[in-house]
């Protein structure tokens, strides 16, 4: 049952330009410094990728569904996102 629910959901993955990415992050509570590094507005600390445990630059950032998951983008980090977040949040 759980699997069938999950399999019915289709997330549309799209690339958007940097300005649109910055706009979304602004709305979701993040800001970008002059070097392109992402910060949390509330804590004023650098955002740390929950998958790679490293800081994230806007150019390489994926903003993914859930309670806002912002990660560094590689095949591996996206795969880990699916395991760690996607399967859980969509259930």
């Amino acid at each position, binding site marked *: 049952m759980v699997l069938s629910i999950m399999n019915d959901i289709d997330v549309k993955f799209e690339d958007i330009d940097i300005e649109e990415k910055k706009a979304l992050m602004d709305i979701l509570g993040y800001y970008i410094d002059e070097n392109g590094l992402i910060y949390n507005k509330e804590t004023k600390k650098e955002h740390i990728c929950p998958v790679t445990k490293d800081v994230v630059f806007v150019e390489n950032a994926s903003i993914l*569904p859930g309670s806002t998951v912002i990660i560094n983008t590689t*095949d591996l980090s996206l795969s880990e996102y699916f395991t760690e977040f996607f399967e859980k949040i969509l259930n």
Partner: protein
Amino acid sequence: MIPPDVYSELLTKSLPELLKLYAAGTIGKDAIEWVKLRIKKLWEKKQYGFTPEPQIASGLQRINKSDAYQRTKGCIGNNPYLNLIRLGLRIEELSEKGKIEAIANMRNNVYDKYGNDGIKILNMGSTGALMPIIQHLSDIKIKNNYSQTYMSDYFKKVIENWANITIFHQTEHRKEALIEKIKHYMDAHLEIFFVFSIGTAGDQAKKAISTLNNNRTIQKKGYMLTLISRKEDQMGRDHFSWIFRNTYNFDKVFL
């Protein structure tokens, strides 16, 4: 106050379209505030993900829904290997399309985090061995009602012993050499081993294995043979995978 016609038009816009508008800043102050709230609301619906690699993310989502992935997850449960299985299945697709650079990048990232075990799983994908392995895991779990913990350990052993339980037959190896190698593996009483072959080498392997089957060598040595996969690739070549299982409960080398 947003004019009614603007409001009606904004209501029809998708999340990416609204982001474009918001970023451009070309709409009035009232509308901007409304758009901001609307973006938040649409984001919470979890219908979109924004990434510099939309094709990879979409591909992984498709793999996530695939029978092969779901069967693996059913076998080994929630497990870090799933990250690699997903990529192994992706690499299988990339290999068929000859995307060498993308595969090399993936290997580097995986090696940095998962070392040789990670690379072995990717290699299973690039050699076409991953799907047969998944089928084998699924078969033995169902047949023996093994737990996910048992299956996870079993899969780990398959990975650890991978080089010693696989034969990748190529035409230049010749039929006779394959026959001898299979006999050698059976004489070593391995619990299981696999033979993989593609195209004309597959036909050669098929003949070698038929010889061993027809003269009952496989049965006499206590093995059961199954053709677990025969699949045609995009170049029209058949990929063959056989598994040899030791049927004796004694004297075999467990994985």
